[in-house]
């Protein structure tokens, strides 16, 4: 059955995501699911005339769930990479995902990204950010060491505990975290490495394409009339220039 027809007739679009990925998805102080994704999908829902049903699960369960058809698409978002594009369909980018460094507040030994040379850096296992920081490390005079975590929150906890010197993650995430916890963390600017983007994900199954086309169209509309930029301002404190479509990602 065609997915678009199914979603339209049910009036529900189910979206898988992890709610521990601020500022895209998280649980706020009042205990509600909030973040850019929540606001953006509300707009998408309005455009398409459907309700959004969130399926919340840990990141390691998200892609298996998508493939198994547990939900229609994945919010996440995920960094758009060549390898992933081979397997999944990415919609239009919703933010920049270029990697930056998060350090402990008051750590003077890291002022610019190159200062991580010779240090221990954490990142999520099997993430694009890990690959990027490893590439970046090779260009430094002293090699860096990396430690891989099942989730970024464990990496942040370890940075706070002082076991690692820095965490490499996408700028929007770490900027938000540093802003929330200024006494614990600080962002090291500028971002480094190749420019990458965040996008929502769907499968390449033929029956899903009409649905993804429809969501993408809604997204484009939201982007064109400036609603996306406003949301970016709200959640990241800045807006990003993003291409309409990434056909040949840098990584």
């Amino acid at each position, binding site marked *: 059955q065609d997915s678009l027809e199914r979603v339209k007739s049910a009036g529900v679009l189910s979206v898988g995501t992890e709610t521990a990925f601020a500022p895209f998805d998280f649980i706020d102080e009042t205990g509600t699911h909030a973040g850019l994704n929540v606001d953006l999908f509300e707009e998408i829902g309005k455009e398409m005339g459907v309700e959004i049903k969130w399926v919340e699960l840990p990141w*390691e369960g998200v892609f298996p769930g998508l493939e198994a058809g547990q939900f229609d698409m994945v919010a996440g978002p995920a960094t758009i990479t060549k390898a992933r594009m081979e397997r999944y369909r990415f919609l239009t980018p919703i933010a920049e995902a270029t990697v930056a460094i998060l350090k402990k507040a008051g750590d003077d030994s890291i002022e610019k990204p190159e200062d991580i040379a010779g240090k221990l850096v954490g990142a999520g296992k099997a993430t694009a950010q890990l690959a990027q920081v490893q590439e970046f490390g090779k260009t430094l005079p002293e090699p860096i060491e990396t430690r891989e975590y099942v989730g970024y929150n464990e990496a942040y906890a370890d940075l706070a505990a002082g076991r690692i010197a820095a965490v490499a993650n996408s700028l929007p995430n770490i900027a938000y975290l540093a802003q929330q916890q200024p006494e614990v963390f600080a962002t090291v600017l500028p971002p480094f490495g190749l420019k990458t983007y965040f996008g929502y994900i769907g499968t390449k199954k033929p029956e899903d394409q009409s649905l993804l086309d429809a969501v993408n169209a809604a997204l484009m509309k939201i982007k064109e009339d400036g609603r996306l930029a406003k949301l970016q301002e709200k959640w990241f404190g800045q807006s990003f220039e993003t291409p309409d479509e990434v056909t040949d990602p840098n990584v």
Partner: protein
Amino acid sequence: MSIDFGLIFARMPEILAAFWVTVWIWIVSNVLAVFLGFGVATLRRYGPLWLDLLLRLLVEIIRGTPFLVQLFLLYFGGPFIGLSLDPIPAGLLGMTVYSTAYYSEIFRAGYNAIPVGHIEAAECVGLTRGQIIRRILVPEMTMLVLPQCVNMAILMMKETAILSIITVPELTLVVGAIGSQQYAFVEAMLLLALFYWFLVELSGFLGRIAEARLSKFRFAHS
């Protein structure tokens, strides 16, 4: 969805290395825990009352909370009280403490299951308390608690999977990572299942052999 193990088999050396990490952490922590657990049970039995109560509280707390929560608090909370451990030492410590609590309960029950008469008989022929523990209680207990210890070791084998959250490069972390890099999630899970099943069946088999060898020390029918 198609199932294709080829992608994963290409990474076999990494997987075997992780398998080895799992196995050695499991063995070392369990061996330590058996000795410590015996020590705790002995202190609770022969030590002063306050020590018994204190140890009991600790054991109950450890047995009453998930290993995941304990490990998280130990690894990420430890540094705030000056205990900053690397992943493997932290994992080893966490596993050892967790298993010690369980083993100590097995040994405590073991102590209670030894007929009082056996101890009285030893007192009557003049053995000292130390000699009674060494010569009578320990060997008798060994055969009483062996089946439960094997059981416990098997349970702990499966708990090692949780060490992944503190980045110990064990089987679940490594196979899971390979699975998501290669987008072969289901294959990775099936492979994991197979590895653990093999280990568990192997331990069960070895346990049964050990039990059979000890069977002639059954309690005499009296």
